[in-house]
């Protein structure tokens, strides 16, 4: 079995999104996140190549604070623009879920508005 570095690929994406040029604080541990932010969670490894590479599909949750719906939508739109400047939606799942909501450990009683985007990463 190939030595896939799922954690490394997720952290690399988090670093790219967190870069000031994009300005989207991102991470893989929801306990360390506070909105506005992006939570990266790995979903599957697919399309292995002869050279032992593969595609890692991750879900990126774009999360904003629990503000009024119109304001939340505007903030999430901005976050989505930032994300799509860095990556494209996954081939296998190019539908962006606009009705996702996330409960972060720091605020366990309040679902937060979120968009969910599946993204392909190289392994």
């Amino acid at each position: 079995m190939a030595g896939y570095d799922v954690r490394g690929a997720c952290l690399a994406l988090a670093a790219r999104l967190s870069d000031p040029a994009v300005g989207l604080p991102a991470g893989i541990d929801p306990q360390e996140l506070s909105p506005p932010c992006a939570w990266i969670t790995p979903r599957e490894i697919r399309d292995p190549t002869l050279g032992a590479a593969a595609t890692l599909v991750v879900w990126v949750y774009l999360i904003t604070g629990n503000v009024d719906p119109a304001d939340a939508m505007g903030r999430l739109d901005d976050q989505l623009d930032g994300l799509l400047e860095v990556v494209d939606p996954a081939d296998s799942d190019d539908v962006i879920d606009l009705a996702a909501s996330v409960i972060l450990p720091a605020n366990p009683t309040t679902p937060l508005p979120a968009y969910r985007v599946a993204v392909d990463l190289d392994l």
Partner: protein
Amino acid sequence: MALPGTVKKLGPGDLTVGAVGSALDFSGRCTSAQLTWKVDQSDDTPVLDGTTLAGDRTYTATLEASVVQADLTVGDLIDYSWANKGTSVPFTFTPYTGGRSITGTLIVDPLDVGGDVKKTNKHDIKWSCVGEPTLVDNLA
């Protein structure tokens, strides 16, 4: 007698084209690879004594692969195939690292570019071999 060897899934392995020292390894973008054989046979010929003379058989081999399309970087597979179209170059296909390899010579045809928007597109390679490829030991 039982067959030697064990059943294996394809990969990890290697697929390269070009001369030793400047070979282009595209196995990292190759999602399928196979060496296929085709046989052309002329008609059998009945003869007076009631028997039949078998027709001649000619074998040709083709390297087939699916490769994820990259961004047209200088030196990538598309660039290589366009720059070397129609050229005979050596190739090596190692289905399993550490196992035996297939070597031979093939003619490079230029790869198509493009496909579906917002999708990772693939090239389907079908490069004809010159002569017959051979199985060799311990190249990988």
